[in-house]
């Protein structure tokens, strides 16, 4: 099982989690993980710690790719439109973009609850994806 990117998400027993980081000084949480410095310019901390982000959130917006995206994306053949959703995570209020698994744009609405899952890219490696909330 290969991850398409290291250190951004983990498949754990209770489900898939995005791995953000949290500033121990001011509490700011961010994704993708920053390890060098806090994103808040008023905070001087350089000591970010890994923070598992909430698995659920509400759809901020969504769309699809009706035509195959160009490389380095590897499009499935035959091509099926990829659905994308930007989801505002519960509690931390970060909007995270991801592919949507098993739902088309016709089945999505802004404000709808989704839950993190994972799925394979067309050439195999796994990436985080949004899925129907269980």
């Amino acid at each position, binding site marked *: 099982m290969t991850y398409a990117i290291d250190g951004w998400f983990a498949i754990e027993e209770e489900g898939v989690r995005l791995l953000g980081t949290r500033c121990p000084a001011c509490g700011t949480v*961010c994704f993708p993980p920053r390890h060098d410095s806090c994103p808040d310019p008023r905070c001087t901390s350089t000591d970010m710690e890994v923070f598992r982000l909430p698995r659920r959130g509400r759809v901020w*917006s969504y*769309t699809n790719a*009706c035509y195959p995206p160009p490389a*380095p*994306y590897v499009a499935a053949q035959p091509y099926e439109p990829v659905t*994308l959703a930007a989801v505002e995570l519960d509690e931390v209020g970060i909007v995270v973009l991801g592919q949507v698994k098993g739902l088309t744009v016709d089945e999505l609405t802004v404000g709808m609850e989704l839950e993190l899952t994972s799925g394979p890219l067309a050439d195999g490696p796994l990436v985080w994806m949004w899925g129907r909330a269980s």
Partner: protein
Amino acid sequence: MSVVVMGTGMHPWGKWGRPFLDYGVAAAREALKDAGLAWTDVQFVVGADTIRNGYPGFVSGASYAKALGWSGARVASCYAACASGAQALDIARARILAGLCDVALVIGADATPKGFFKPVGGDRPDDPDWLRFRLLGATNPAYFALYARRRMAVHGSTPADFAAVKVKNALAGSLNPMARYRERVTAEQVLASPMVADPLHLMDICATSDGGAAVVLASEGYARRHGGTLVRLAAVSTVTPTFPNTVLELPDFATDSRVTEPPPGHRPFRAAIAHAAYEEAGLGPQDVSLAEVYDLSTALELDWMEDVGLCPPGEADKLLRDGQTALGGRIPVNPSGGLASFGEAIPAQAIAQLCELTAQLSGRAGPRQVENARVGLAANQGLFGHGSAIIATR
């Protein structure tokens, strides 16, 4: 002291298949002719770079200088994605304001491949612009579509509203000899064009184009000695976003957390870009006679109108529907025809916006002329957080 636009020049936008230098040099020659100057009069040349045309594109200032004939002029080259043109203008303006030169030539041009913009070549897992394609297949239109769908949900805009933007801009573009698309279109044609990224159709999304634009900037004293209408470059805003940036930006995977309390005076990025320009010019949205905003999609024009303060949030659709943003309306938006009629030639675009403002403010816009134009605003945004806004006045 102020900096003025002495001359403007453009090479028509299209898909001509020639080297970018050809378009830039043609635009530069036009701008020099318009200013009544020779290339050898130019003390400082700034090139807005292109990243899709090999090494000459990364050092475009020198590439243009060589093509025009080595003159010994001082040179700069810069890249800031779609904001490259504004960045180049800002560099030239700063040198004039510092008293280090009197006259500068700013040039931007691009030659683009067909289809979606791709990341530049090579495997670069540390580059978000490469990763967003690799992990998500998230093209530029995907981001435009996210904004459009969000607008539909928050403000009740419809695909028919978006199509009405294209109809308006195509009409203006039909009157602009520099535009790539000169055909008028109907809302039915827009809505019947293929869906690219739901809810945006092909005709909602700006194309990628070849084109070139150039301006001659000068100190006011220098320009006065040469005569002509004085169009002042009253502001160039090149701000970055402020934390927390809670709107998803190209090419990002995520926003900042909205849990963080924003500092006083915090504005969303696009609004902050325009605000900084207003502050610098000592003007406000109520003073604006016309605006060129970056309509990467039809829907985005509506967002920009609100972000630059032409109307309160959620009211852009009504202004559009009432014809207020069309030529002849109270506040024409994209009187050039906008990206809808031009398509995007990245480093040329902000310079082309200034060409339109200058044409309007000097009463030389022909059938597109906005009556009694006194203040023009141009707004734009470069990938990764490069703000770009210009205010010109007469």
